[in-house]
């Protein structure tokens, strides 16, 4: 693997880890549930997306790369749905927290 690809991998994964870290800090620090939910979905979306992007050059085969992308898409689907469900539940209960 060329130096450029290795560098790209490392940078993308590091950026992904940064988003996970930022999302986790926000999850712990944000004042209300809706903001925390917002932080969480960003970590899932961008964090995992960047980690998958960084892993793509290292996947070995196109099929393995495709599996990584499908994995990301599935997590997107479930995380977006869960965010909607929790948001709707919060609205129903109208909890201030």
């Amino acid at each position, binding site marked *: 693997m060329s130096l450029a690809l290795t560098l790209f991998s490392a940078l993308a994964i590091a950026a992904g880890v940064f988003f996970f870290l930022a999302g986790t800090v926000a999850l712990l620090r944000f004042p209300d549930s809706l903001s925390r939910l917002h932080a969480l979905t960003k970590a899932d979306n961008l964090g995992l997306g960047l980690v998958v992007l960084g892993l793509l050059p290292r996947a070995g085969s196109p099929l393995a790369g495709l599996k990584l992308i499908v994995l990301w898409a*599935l997590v997107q*689907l479930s995380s*977006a749905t869960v965010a909607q469900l929790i948001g709707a539940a919060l609205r129903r209960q109208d909890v201030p927290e």
Partner: protein
Amino acid sequence: MTLFDALDLALAAIVLGVAAWTIAAREMFSAVVGYVAYGLLLAIVWVRLYAPDVALTEASIGSGVTGVLLVAASTRLRRLPAPDAPPGAALKIAAALLSVLVTGVLATAVLYLPNPAASLAPEADRHLAATGLGNAVTAVLIAYRSFDTMLEKVVLVLAVVGVWSVAPERFWGGQPAPLGPAAPDAALVFLARILAPIGVVIGVQMFWVGADDPGGAFQGGAILAAMWIIVMMARLTEPPPIGSGWLRLALISGPAVFLLVGVAGPYMAGSFFGYPVGFAKPLILFVEAFMVLSIGVTLPLLVAGPPSREAGQ
């Protein structure tokens, strides 16, 4: 200490921390959430122990399906009237003593294991070619110790019978309660519509590759079960009446086919639960296919609970 050692230690500490938190949680629902997180962390532990098959099982059954089961149970318990008196001191002490006893026995057993541990792994590996399989775990489950695995499936069927048997007499043969509210969230319906077809493909694929790679009937069946549970939660389909013939047939198909193949063993291969040389792999996959079906039906029925209305209502 290498980086991986440090990460492993941190992982172990987190697992212990989440376990302690789960026990200490006052709210039942918090404890369930803690248990699910604990299961997912445990799956990572299994990956670090180079046991991806166990990791998949832990994530799908130990954490996933059991998590749904516990959430459903805690919701159902919350609807019941609170008990008149909190558990007395004697009951609490008895529960604590029992827990300490079980932990003590387990700890003693682990600490007294010979070091290096006696292993049948080389033996299992050496005869792998005779089964035609590439995954030693599947070979152990469906070939070397097939009788144990067959009995495990029987236990699952007995668990469903146990759940059904708490139903009132008049509902026998009827339908379990719906898994969700009458008007489920549009987002959940959307998820069920998109995810279920993909999940079915992934579940079948996981069973199919289990012959040679990590995966197998348990993991594949658990994913199929999860898909049925999601579809029922979105109210796209209702729990079937427990009197239905196809349902009962699917439920027992796994252990029944396994037992039939085992009984045919003496005629095919000269021994009980033996597989004929050269035809072992197709036979193993045949048995496993019915086990996938059985597991995929059993777990959702455990989640759905006992019948609580007459069929067709």
